[in-house]
């Protein structure tokens, strides 16, 4: 003890080794490692769900893009044509010709089967009408062999894909009879059935329950397009104008603070609220046409505006004040400073915000339900103006509509619609990223 008391205080301090971790460092490092593990875990979980979701969508939706067609060689002579055209039930005669021809074709492939025109109608639709229309339009094809590709009914499709079995059919109905299975098998054996890309899914319109296979998303894509046009034309200038005023010109006082808070709040308002607002104001009060993309676009504009205003203000704020000073310093007016210097620098951010806002609006369903854009729309608008004011659907509303129907083919179409919608969204977001990369300037 006496020795210790005699040594100077500095020497009493133990020398810390840098090689060995002390307790505190160990604890710190352990907590850092733990945090990293949490992060990796979170990312892995997210990735897992994303992959599972994509796999589910693709496996359920991709079949919607393929369709079974029956390819039948067929020859019609001039006499047959004349006989049929003179008969009372013209298309019936054509169907008879087709049945004979198909029987012959099957026989030549070594498959013997008895079937009637009813069966053909159930499996391939109104074949007689199709044939007649073709030969009336192409009389020069008379006597020559023509190969017809006839779209098979959705149940054929499902039978071939394995989602519809013999056991599923209880006695048969006007859409399908047990003996039809034999005909399908026969045609498959004769290699008359093949799978082709279902263009009709993109170009077609919604169909009734009797023809789920023919349903297409085309008309609702057009409906969405017209809505997006309305949203873009209204929300971009209004949103950017409002943001520029608020950010660059407006005095900072309680009133503008109040507006700011409310814009932020608007961004968080559930979309269905905008829907009911649209219903009350645009349809019941202003008497704009119901179910029209114009009204849908107006409602979605209200929804998109806060997004655009917030992102625009953020990108205006991100422009360094030195640029404004520089412009004002050489005698530019406030407006010249904003439009010549600040806005070009903020443009990539504004564009990105706008595209993300549009993508959000494109995927929005709830407000559309309220303004009636979920109706059954089975035709394209005739003119550009009608595209805005005629009742139409939108892609997400169409998906909702299909998913609500009982027929499994419609469910498949709904999944297919989701793929289409996702493709649009991915495209828009990619454009946003590219624009930002391209026009971003350093200062």
């Amino acid at each position, binding site marked *: 003890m006496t020795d210790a008391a005699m040594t100077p205080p500095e020497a009493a301090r133990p020398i810390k080794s840098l090689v060995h971790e002390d307790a505190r460092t160990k604890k710190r490092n352990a907590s850092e490692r733990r945090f990293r593990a949490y992060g990796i875990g979170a990312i892995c979980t997210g990735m897992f769900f994303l992959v599972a979701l994509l796999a589910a969508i693709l496996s359920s939706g991709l079949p919607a893009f393929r369709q079974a067609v029956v390819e039948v060689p067929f020859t019609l002579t001039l006499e047959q044509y004349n006989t049929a055209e003179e008969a009372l039930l013209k298309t019936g005669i054509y169907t008879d010709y087709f049945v004979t021809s198909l029987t012959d074709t099957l026989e030549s492939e070594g498959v013997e089967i008895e079937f009637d025109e009813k069966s053909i109608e159930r499996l391939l639709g109104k074949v007689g009408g199709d044939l007649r229309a073709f030969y009336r339009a192409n009389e020069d094809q008379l006597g020559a062999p023509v190969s017809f590709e006839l779209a098979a009914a959705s149940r054929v499709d499902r039978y071939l894909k394995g989602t519809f079995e013999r056991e599923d059919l209880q006695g048969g109905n006007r859409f399908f009879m047990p003996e039809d299975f034999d005909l399908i098998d026969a045609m498959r054996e004769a290699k008359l059935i093949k799978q082709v890309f279902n263009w009709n899914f993109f170009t077609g319109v919604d169909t009734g329950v009797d023809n789920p296979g023919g349903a297409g998303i085309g008309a609702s894509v057009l409906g969405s397009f017209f809505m997006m046009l309305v949203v873009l034309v209204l929300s971009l200038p209004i949103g950017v104008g409002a943001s520029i005023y608020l950010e660059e010109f407006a005095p*900072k006082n309680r009133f503008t603070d109040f507006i700011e808070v409310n814009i932020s709040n608007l961004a968080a308002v559930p979309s269905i609220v905008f829907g009911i607002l649209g219903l009350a104001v645009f349809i019941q009060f202003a008497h704009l046409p119901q179910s029209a993309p114009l009204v849908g676009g107006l409602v979605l504009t209200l929804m998109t505006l806060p997004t655009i205003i917030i992102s625009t203000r953020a990108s205006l704020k991100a422009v360094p004040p030195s640029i404004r000073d*520089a412009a004002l*310093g*050489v*005698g*530019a*007016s406030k407006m010249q400073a904003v439009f010549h*210097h600040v806005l070009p620098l903020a443009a990539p951010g504004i564009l990105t915000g706008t595209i993300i806002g549009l993508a959000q609006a494109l995927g929005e369903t709830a407000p559309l339900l309220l303004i009636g854009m979920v109706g059954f729309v089975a035709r394209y608008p005739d003119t550009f103006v009608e595209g805005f004011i005629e009742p139409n659907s939108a892609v997400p509303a169409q998906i909702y509509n299909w998913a609500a129907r009982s027929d499994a083919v419609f469910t498949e179409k709904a999944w297919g619609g989701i793929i289409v919608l996702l493709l649009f969204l991915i495209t828009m977001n990619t454009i946003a990223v590219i624009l930002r990369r391209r026009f971003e300037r350093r*200062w």
Partner: protein
Amino acid sequence: MNDMRILERDVDTNDVKIAAKGVQVYYGETHAIKDVDVEIDDKTVTAFIGPSGCGKSTFLRCINRMNDTIDVCRVTGDIHIDGEDIYDSKVDPVQLRAKVGMVFQKPNPFPKSIYDNVAYGPRIHGLAKNKAELDELVEKSLRRGAIWDEVKDRLDAPGTGLSGGQQQRLCIARAVATEPEVLLMDEPCSALDPIATAQIEELIDELRQSYSVVIVTHSMQQAARVSQKTAFFHLGNLVEYGETGQIFTNPVDPRTESYITGRIG
């Protein structure tokens, strides 16, 4: 103007360009400038020195009303340029700023080409009738900014790609392109190395031939090198104003003496 003549000063002219009387500046509750009276001569370099936060930059920004862009800033008192009150309600600050150019502390070229940086001011003020005149004006301004030789081959290159010193000279060229009568410089060399600083100082001395230059600086050596007159600000007050030589060798106020000898600040 004769009645406002200030005698016995070692400067090229004795015309008063800027006359400030009883200027007070408030930032919200803060009283940043307290009752400043100063008369700045034409064709003279006037330096504002003083410790950080003493109000020299604030006062400089009053001269071209850049403080208008700050919401909470309030200016009272009179500032006259060529006998006209610049805070008169009839005065358009945009016109004022064309007459009173400014160079900022941090080089802030526009993210555009070198040519467009210089041509922007003349364009918005309509100083050039055609492209040839504009080209000539740009060249003249870049020459006055002592940067022409370095950039003449790459006028289309972005101004932000230049080095710090070059950027600052580009900003000076941009400021003189609008043919101002007064040039305000807010610590133009604080972000530059000694070589670039020397170039800028040389340039300031040349600019004195045509403009009244007011420069805010933290460097007392710089004030002594470039200015003919010096104003010392402290805590929002103008403590002392006079010939640079007299301020640095024989200051009247003890605070000035403490500052220049390094005891405060």
